[in-house]
């Protein structure tokens, strides 16, 4: 297949067309710049729909593969330009291409300064993120992984809040600290297995070496997720980032970490995954409970939502390392759910911030009477985030808990039902802090005079939120198409892990 014009190459690199156009647009024409950015990201989304149409859900293997030699010198180097997707990466790419235009559109009035650079960085960020999900060569993967760091660093650092520089550099150094260890592990694999191609390494990593390699990869991903106790960069980055930055940060960037765990830690090192599953489950459960407990007393709404991410991502990790089909499928779906719900929450927080220039919970109260539409939409998203049946959060969390319960059987990944039991507690805690937030903001009387006469959502804000709300209902009421997309790949992965585990005994 032609490398340049294959679907995956296009979906990855199309935003660069937008970047090229933006470079030649005068910076004073802000609206033109915005339209170009929205247009480029929307076109990317359309291309990703073509990708979805070309994808065969029944085939568990890598599809739409593009592969051509990139750096080949003698026998020393074996690096390929190698793209391909399975069900999990397909869904995450769709999430990325879906959220990016929304995020860009939401910045319409919020970003007034240096619009051109902002849009350029945003489109570059999209290239980096999609690149991570499609790369099947470890070298290429690493390049996209690190590359995605730079635009986000600049987005937080330039357009962020008061403390933006500290948050940006902290975000950068934390993430880089993890990924350099992964770089060494990738090098080790390249030298000892003789190739950097994921599908060629699969099943060839000696069991004795898996432990250290697993940890090196896990270091990179655990910081990105973030797994407790490596989360301390997250509240800073989320709070300081501009709204659209938070949306992408929570919606997609955190998923780079969980995706990494799924693809590399489970795929390449199944023996080690089995060995470390209980340890990771402990961290995941601590994250679930810790995130929930810390969310509750937050005074800043954005910080509350940020900490809730720690809790939600704990669920994803718990599902992944249950190492069974239900858990992993639930985890993948929960990645999507979290992207939708938390993305929407950050958008909602951003909208009230634009009106009131504060995010302090105590400043609000009684908003329902002033902004009924805003209140209704917030209620839906809040309920989705806490996992109310009928909305998307419930489906994912339920599958994860089922998986974790299954993994609790003697001889299974966790070997104890305690994990599932404690995690269920997290669901209740989520209801507590989410409803607490909702109540403080919307119910009761308007106490603060500044809240009187706030304008309800305008058409642009509604346009931004409606697609997310539709997805929230769709996944909540009829999740089957999503499971169908991923289940063959997941089943194959689980089978591989099981057989590796048998070989271990």
């Amino acid at each position, binding site marked *: 297949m032609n490398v340049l014009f294959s679907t995956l190459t296009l979906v990855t690199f199309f935003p660069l067309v937008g970047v090229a156009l933006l470079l030649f647009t005068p910076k004073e024409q802000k609206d033109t710049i915005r339209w170009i950015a929205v247009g480029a990201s929307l076109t990317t989304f359309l291309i990703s729909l073509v990708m979805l149409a070309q994808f065969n859900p029944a085939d568990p293997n890598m599809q739409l593969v593009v592969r051509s030699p990139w750096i080949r010198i003698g026998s020393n180097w074996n690096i390929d330009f190698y793209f391909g997707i399975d069900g999990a990466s397909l869904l995450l790419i769709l999430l990325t291409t879906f959220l990016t235009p929304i995020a860009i559109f939401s910045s319409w009035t919020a970003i007034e300064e240096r619009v051109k650079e902002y849009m350029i960085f945003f489109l570059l960020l999209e290239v980096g993120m999609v690149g991570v999900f499609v790369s099947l060569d470890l070298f290429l993967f690493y390049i996209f992984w690190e*590359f995605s760091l*730079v635009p986000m660093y600049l987005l937080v*650092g330039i357009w962020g809040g008061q403390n933006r520089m500290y948050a940006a*550099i902290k975000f*950068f150094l934390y993430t*880089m600290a993890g990924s350099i260890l992964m770089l060494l592990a990738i090098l080790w694999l390249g030298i000892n297995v003789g190739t950097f191609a994921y599908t060629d390494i699969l099943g060839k990593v000696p069991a004795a070496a898996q432990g250290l390699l697993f940890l090196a990869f896990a270091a990179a991903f655990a910081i990105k997720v973030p797994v407790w106790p490596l989360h301390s960069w997250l509240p800073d980055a989320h709070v300081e980032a501009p709204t659209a930055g938070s949306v992408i940060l929570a919606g997609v960037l955190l998923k780079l970490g969980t995706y990494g765990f799924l693809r590399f830690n489970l795929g390449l090192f199944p023996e080690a995954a089995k060995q470390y599953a209980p340890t990771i489950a402990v961290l995941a459960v601590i994250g679930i409970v810790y995130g929930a407990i810390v969310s509750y007393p937050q005074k800043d709404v954005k910080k509350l939502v940020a900490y809730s991410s720690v809790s939600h991502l704990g669920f994803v990790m718990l599902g992944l390392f249950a190492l069974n089909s239900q858990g992993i499928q639930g985890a993948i779906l929960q990645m999507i759910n979290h992207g939708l719900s938390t993305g929407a929450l950050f958008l909602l927080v951003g909208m009230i911030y634009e009106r009131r220039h504060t995010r302090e919970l105590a400043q609000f109260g009684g908003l329902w009477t002033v902004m009924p539409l805003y209140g209704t939409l917030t209620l839906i998203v809040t309920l989705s985030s806490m996992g109310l049946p009928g909305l998307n959060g419930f489906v994912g969390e339920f599958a994860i808990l089922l998986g974790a319960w299954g993994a609790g059987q003697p001889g299974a990944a966790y070997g104890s039902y305690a994990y599932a039991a404690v995690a269920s507690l997290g669901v209740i805690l989520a209801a507590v802090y989410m409803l607490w937030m909702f109540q403080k903001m919307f119910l009761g009387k308007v106490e603060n005079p500044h809240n009187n006469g706030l304008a309800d959502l305008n058409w642009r804000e509604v346009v931004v939120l409606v697609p997310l709300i539709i997805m929230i209902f769709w996944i909540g009421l009829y999740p089957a198409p999503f499971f169908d997309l991923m289940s063959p790949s997941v089943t194959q992965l689980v089978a591989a892990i099981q057989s590796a585990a048998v070989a271990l005994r």
Partner: protein
Amino acid sequence: MTTSDFNAILPLIVLAGWASLMLLVDLWIPKTRKDITAALALLGLAVTLAVLLVIAATGPTPIVAFGGMIVLDGFTVFLNVLVLGTGGLAVLLALNYLKRVNIERGEFYTLLLFSIAGMMMMASAGDLIVVFLALETLSIPLYILSGFARPRLDSEESALKYFLLGAFASGFLVYGIALTYGATATTSLSQIAAAVAANGALAADPLLLAGAALILVGLGFKVAAVPFHMWAPDVYEGAPTIVTAFMSVGAKIGGFAALVRVFFIAFPALAAHWTPVVAAISALTMILGNVAAIAQSSIKRMLAYSSIAHAGYVLMAVVAGGAGTMAGFAASSAVFYLLGYAVMNLGAWAVVMAVEKDGAAAKVDDFAGLGATRIGMALAMTVFMLSLTGLPPTIGFIGKFYVFRAAIDSGYMWLAVVGVITSLISAFYYLRVVMVMWMQSGQGEAVTPLGLSTVVTLSALATFILGIVPGPLMAAAERALLALLAKA
């Protein structure tokens, strides 16, 4: 002297002869038209490059000339092209800068060419005597150039310091050569190796070991490796920035050319002794260079420490060459790293020159707001800083990937770990520049004459494009080096 002898040194003759002629011609060029001298210097470099490439393309390589004193092989050609390119970019940068800081004198270009001739000779040295000769030829013009901004005190101080410590280092080198001669009765690199091979006891001979150690010290000074780096920050800061830019790249290439030649060809049998030492030096260099750079507020000092740190990464490749069975691979990684370093570092220095106000040393804070006022310069500087950190997709990343791979291949995992951790540390100070440019408001200003913006554009594009398509150059580096070490 045979034809092939002549061919092997023809590029050197051309360049040195051109430089001497320029010294004369410059007398007739009026003070206001020194750009003619610069153009002549560029032409000289171009002619030399052409001669070199014609010889390399037509003649049989490798040429071993003057009984093994001079060698012209793939390694020579690769590094000579690199040095000539560096020189060309330096001339382009100098053109306007010298006028701006009021030190425009024709000798500048002559001295630059002589120094380049020294570096080229270094890359073709087949004998310790030639190594010494080349080292002096490249260093003495640099001593003078460091003091070029006289009567500015810090420039004079820089020159004196560089000269004294450089002379000291040369002393070590000569002493090392003498001891090596005492042990093996030869100064020819290949014959030293042959002597050790013929008499195994020599490999543990204290005389020879002491000789090798002293040579290592001498060359360590030149590449500014810890603990022989003390001179670098002061000299780099005091010298006119254009000289610093050239010296931080050129002198390093020269020094490493000698290190690779001497240690890979003459002393491979002693590898068990020198590899751990070089490994320790490499680790210390990376750690100290990067940690010390954090504390600097002057951009010149920061880049000085950064260039110390980068010497550590190249040394990692030297270690790999000593420890592993893949000396050719290790050496090619060193050469590739040097190439990447030359491109990104020259670019970074060029931006520093643009931001600098009338010869006053620029602070990191002088970059504040550059992202708003001069977006092109800020973008380029961002690319250079990310590349120096070693982030993809830049040549700096490929370079690091290459040397880390060499280190892991030869069993030096711990050194690679030190390498990645210090890269992380370096992110802190390189990103500070990025942060100041984009995230702080200020009146960042830049003077960008045509020559300078050409250099910045070229290096930024090269940093980026070679980071995406490094294959051909890596292949060239490996061809150059595998041939060299196959012969040895």
